[in-house]
C-alpha cells in the first residue's frame, strides 16, 4: 500500500508539469492569426495560410473572432499575448493603437509596403483589403431588389430582416447610417436607435457577427438586411440565393488593417504573414472568385466582379462610397453597444 501511496503523492508533488513533457507553457508556440469569422476565415484558410506555409515552411493557426474580442484577449494578457497578428476594422484599429497593443510595422524591411495605395500605407499596420457594407437580400424571396436603407422598414418584410449587434463594424456602421438618414450623425445616434426600435417587428434575427448573418441567408432564416459584400460571396458561389446591392444613400466602405501584436513571441513570422497578405499574388487570388476581396496593392488592378459591382479603382471607391468618421464613433461606441444590448437585443 505504501509504495502505491508514495508513488501517487510524489507524482503530485513533482507537480503536474512533469506529467506534461510536451505540453509545457514555455514551448515556442505556433503563430496565431485572429482573422474574422465567416468568409474571411475561409479565404484566409484557403489562400493566405497556404501561401504563408509555402513562404516560411512554418505552421500557423487561425483563431477567428471579432475585432473587439481580439482586443479584449490581447489586453487581458499583454505580456504574453495569445494572438500574434490582429485584423481590425477602422474603429477597433484606433482602439488597439491607442491602447498600445500593436507593434509598428517594420516598413523599411517590407517588400510590398511601398506598392500599397496611399490609403493602405499605415505604419501601425498596413491595410490588406477594403470592405463594403450595403444591403443583402434573397432574390428568390425578395422579388424587387431594395434600393434604400429605408426599404427595410416596409411592412412586407415583417419577420424577415436580419441585422447584427453593435460589436461588429457592420452593425455600428449601419446604426450610424440610419441615424444620419434621420438627421443624426456619428456623434448623435439617438434617431438611429429609435429607428431600429421601430424596425423590431421586421427583425427575424440579431446575429452575433457578419459571418453568422450571412449564414442566416443560407438557412433561410432571414431574407433582407444590411450586409457585407464579402460575407456573402462564398455562399453565393455555392449557389445560395443571396445578392448584394448598394443603397442609393451610398454603401459604407472602410479599410481593414493588419497588425503585429505587441510582445508577440513570433514577431518574425507575424511579419512574414502580413507580407504574404500584402503580396500581389495573394491579393490577386483573393480578388478572384469566390472571395472578391478588394485589393490594396497597386500592382493588382481591380478587375472582374469587384470592378463590375464595386469600383474599378481606389478613386472610384472613394467617390462612390460613404466613409465614416471612426474617431468620432469610437468615443461613444462602448456605450452604444451597452445601450443596444439593453434596448434592442
Amino acid at each position, binding site marked *: 500500500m505504501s509504495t502505491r501511496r508514495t508513488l501517487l503523492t510524489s507524482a503530485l508533488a513533482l507537480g*503536474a508539469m512533469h506529467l506534461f513533457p510536451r505540453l509545457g507553457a514555455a514551448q515556442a508556440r505556433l503563430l496565431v492569426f485572429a482573422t474574422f469569422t465567416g468568409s474571411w476565415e475561409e479565404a484566409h484558410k484557403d489562400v493566405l495560410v497556404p501561401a504563408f506555409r509555402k513562404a516560411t515552411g512554418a505552421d500557423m493557426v487561425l483563431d477567428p473572432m471579432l475585432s473587439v474580442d481580439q482586443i479584449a484577449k490581447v489586453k487581458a494578457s499583454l505580456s504574453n499575448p495569445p494572438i500574434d497578428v490582429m485584423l481590425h476594422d477602422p474603429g477597433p484599429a484606433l482602439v488597439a493603437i491607442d491602447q498600445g497593443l500593436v507593434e509598428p510595422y517594420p516598413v523599411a524591411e517590407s517588400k510590398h509596403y511601398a506598392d500599397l495605395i496611399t490609403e493602405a500605407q499605415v505604419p501601425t499596420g498596413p491595410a490588406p483589403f477594403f470592405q463594403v457594407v450595403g444591403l443583402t437580400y434573397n432574390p428568390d424571396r425578395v422579388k424587387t431588389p431594395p434600393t434604400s436603407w429605408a426599404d427595410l422598414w416596409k411592412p412586407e418584410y415583417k419577420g424577415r430582416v436580419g441585422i447584427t449587434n453593435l460589436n461588429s463594424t457592420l452593425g455600428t456602421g449601419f446604426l450610424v447610417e440610419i441615424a444620419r438618414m434621420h438627421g443624426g450623425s456619428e456623434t448623435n445616434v439617438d434617431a438611429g436607435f429609435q429607428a431600429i426600435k421601430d424596425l423590431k417587428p421586421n427583425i427575424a434575427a440579431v446575429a452575433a457577427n457578419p459571418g453568422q448573418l450571412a449564414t442566416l441567408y443560407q438557412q433561410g432564416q432571414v431574407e433582407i438586411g444590411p450586409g457585407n459584400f464579402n460575407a456573402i460571396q462564398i455562399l453565393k458561389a*455555392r449557389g445560395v440565393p443571396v445578392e448584394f446591392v448598394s443603397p442609393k444613400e451610398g454603401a459604407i466602405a472602410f479599410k481593414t488593417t493588419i497588425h503585429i501584436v505587441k510582445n508577440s513571441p513570433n514577431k518574425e513570422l507575424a511579419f512574414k504573414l502580413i507580407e504574404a497578405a500584402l503580396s500581389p499574388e495573394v491579393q490577386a487570388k483573393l480578388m478572384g472568385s469566390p472571395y472578391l476581396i478588394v485589393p490594396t496593392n497597386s500592382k493588382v488592378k481591380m478587375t472582374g466582379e469587384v470592378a463590375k459591382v464595386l469600383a474599378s479603382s481606389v478613386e472610384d471607391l472613394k467617390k462612390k462610397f460613404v466613409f465614416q468618421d471612426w474617431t468620432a464613433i469610437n468615443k461613444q461606441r462602448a456605450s452604444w453597444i451597452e445601450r443596444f444590448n439593453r434596448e434592442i437585443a
Partner: protein
Amino acid sequence: MRRRMGWEAVSFRVTLWGLAILGVLLLTLPSVVVIVVSFTSGYSLKFPPPGYSFRWYVSLLDAWQLQFAAGNSLKIAIWTTTLSVLIGVPAALAIARSPTARAKVLDSLFMSPLVLPALSFGLAALMFFSLIGLSVSPLTLVIGHVIVCVPFVLRTTIASVAQLEPTLLESSASLGASRLYTFRRITLPLIRPGIMAGAFIAFMSSFDNVPVSLFLRDARTDMLPIRMWQDLEGKLDVSIAAVSGVMIVLTLSLMMLMERLAGLSRRLR
C-alpha cells in the same frame, strides 16, 4: 361504474404512452435528422435534403482546423481521465466506507462541480491562473477539466465499493493476506467495472466540455466543441453535420463497448 373505469384505464394508458412516445421522439429525432442531413448533396441544412452524397464527409479530410481541435480535445480528455482515475479512485475508496462527518463533507465538496455552474468555475479558474502567473496552456485545461470530470469517477467507484461484501475482504485478511494483496486481488477486480464506467463518462464529458474550456483555451489549444460552436455561430456549415455524424457513431460504438465491459447503464442510475 365498470364502463367508466374502463374508459379511465384507457385514457390513462393512452396519455402516458403518448407522452412517452413524444419523449422518445424528442430524444432520438435530432440525432437521426443530423445523420440524414449530413449526407446532403446541397449546401444548406434543408430537410429532407435535395440529394445525397458523401461530399461533406470527404470535406472533413481537408478540414485541418477541425482535425487540429479534435486532436487537442482527445489529448486533453486522455490526460484528464488518467489524472481523474489516479486521484479519484483512492478518494472514492476512502469516502465510500467512512461513516465520519469529514468524509461526508469531502463527498459533497467533490460532487459540487456537478451542480454548480461550470461557467462560473471556468472564469474563476482563469482569474486564478492569471493571478499565479500560469498562462493558458494544456496544463491549465487539464486541471480545470479534472475538477468537473472527477465527480463521475467518484460516483461510480463509490457505488461499486459500497456493494462490496465486507466479509469477503475480512475473510481474505483472516487468511493472512496483506491489505495490498487483498486490494489487488479482490477489491480492484470487483470495483473495476465501476472505475471503467466512471472513467468513460469522465472522458466523454472532458471531450465535450465547453464552459471550462471556454475560458482556459486559446488558439493553440483549440478544443473541438468550441471550434464547432464557433463554426456554428460563424458559418453554420454542413461539414458540422458530418462531424456530428462521426461523433454520434463513435459515441454509440463506445457506449456499446462500455455496456459490454462495464455494464454502463446499470451504473448511471
